[in-house]
């Protein structure tokens, strides 16, 4: 037996309303995001076909943040995530592993060679016969080409590198494929998305599909889109991967969670990514 979700959230909204009074300055849901006065981000879009019966419009998490947090993402200098992009750029150019190679030796300047990459991951890899996240692809490069040690799936080296690789795709629409051999992973991810977990018996959908835009305590619930990942969070002042965020969400349902990099989270990332097909790649974005 679980607590009724609607009852819990209703109570939470009431408490939030009391705490916040009029609730001004929470978020400007109509705001438009232009980064560096140059990159026009699509922060709201028509829902992709597979969500046609569920949602009319998909929204970037940016839409739900406060004015101050929104402003941090409008300029790459104000966005603290970029100091970690700089750190990753040093790693990109540094040789590592027995082969004595750096990322740059094969891929030159990531601002040219990595255009469009973030937008299509996770992606089926025919040669390896597996669905790969960007993290898995980076580790495949490290072990296969560089003969270097794998990076920890959600460690800082890895999350910083995924942020760097995302930068040249900013403003491009997320366009993750889920047909062919990827489909069975997509179905598995979808099942996870709608499966209630934990003592609170909450599925992803209970908050991010049924209640986006509502308050959960003092937090403004988003649609749980991952087009902005990795994100710089004000909470922990570092870049956070999608899998780390999934883990945090599932832990908050008071469940044992899957591990970052697990088959379950890879499948969930594929499914959640396709819920955002049509939104712009924003990473590294800024959230609370």
């Amino acid at each position: 037996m679980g607590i009724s979700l609607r009852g819990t959230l209703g109570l939470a909204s009431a408490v939030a309303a009391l705490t916040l009074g009029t609730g001004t300055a929470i978020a400007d849901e109509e705001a438009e995001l232009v980064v560096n006065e140059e990159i026009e981000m699509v922060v709201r879009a028509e829902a992709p076909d597979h969500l046609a019966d569920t949602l009319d419009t998909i929204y970037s998490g940016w839409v739900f943040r406060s004015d101050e947090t929104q402003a941090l993402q409008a300029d790459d200098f104000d966005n603290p995530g970029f100091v970690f992009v700089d750190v990753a750029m040093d790693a990109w150019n540094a040789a590592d592993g027995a082969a004595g190679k750096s990322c740059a030796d094969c891929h030159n300047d990531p601002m040219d060679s990595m255009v469009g990459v973030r937008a299509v991951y996770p992606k089926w890899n025919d040669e390896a016969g597996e669905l790969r996240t960007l993290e898995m692809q980076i580790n495949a490069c490290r072990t296969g080409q560089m003969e270097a040690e794998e990076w920890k799936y959600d460690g800082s080296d890895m999350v910083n590198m995924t942020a760097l690789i995302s930068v040249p795709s900013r403003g491009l629409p997320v366009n993750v494929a889920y047909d062919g051999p990827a489909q069975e992973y997509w179905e598995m991810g979808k099942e996870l998305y709608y499966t209630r977990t934990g003592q609170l018996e909450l599925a992803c959908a209970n908050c991010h599909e049924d209640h986006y835009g509502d308050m959960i305590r003092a937090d403004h619930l988003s649609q749980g889109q991952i087009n902005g990942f990795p994100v710089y969070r004000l909470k922990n002042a570092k870049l956070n991967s999608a899998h780390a965020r999934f883990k945090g969400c599932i832990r908050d349902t008071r469940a044992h969670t899957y591990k970052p990099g697990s088959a379950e989270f890879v499948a969930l990332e594929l499914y959640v990514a396709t819920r955002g097909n049509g939104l712009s790649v924003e990473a590294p974005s800024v959230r609370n």
Partner: protein
Amino acid sequence: MAKGVKPRVKVPKTAAAGEAITIKTLISHKMESGQRKDSDGNLIPRSIINRFTTSFNGQEVLDVVVEPAVSTNPYFEFEALVPEAGEFTFTWYDDDGSVYEAKKAVAIA
């Protein structure tokens, strides 16, 4: 030297003589406040950037005493006069004695 400390500075490359310009700075630093405890309940010692200074051709622009209440990855935005061509020097002082420096040249347009 604390691990992974990296400064970022945004300064226009050119300015008119006597022009006021906006400068933004950020340095990656955990700014451990000295108020937190580890999982064993022991106090984590304070480790912060405690001072940040900016000068141009040796003349002072700004000198900030920084306390643990400043956020992780400390950020400062301010305005400076550029009387002639020259170089800004930005300096961050770490509790552990390390000093991090960044320099940016400005030409007169």
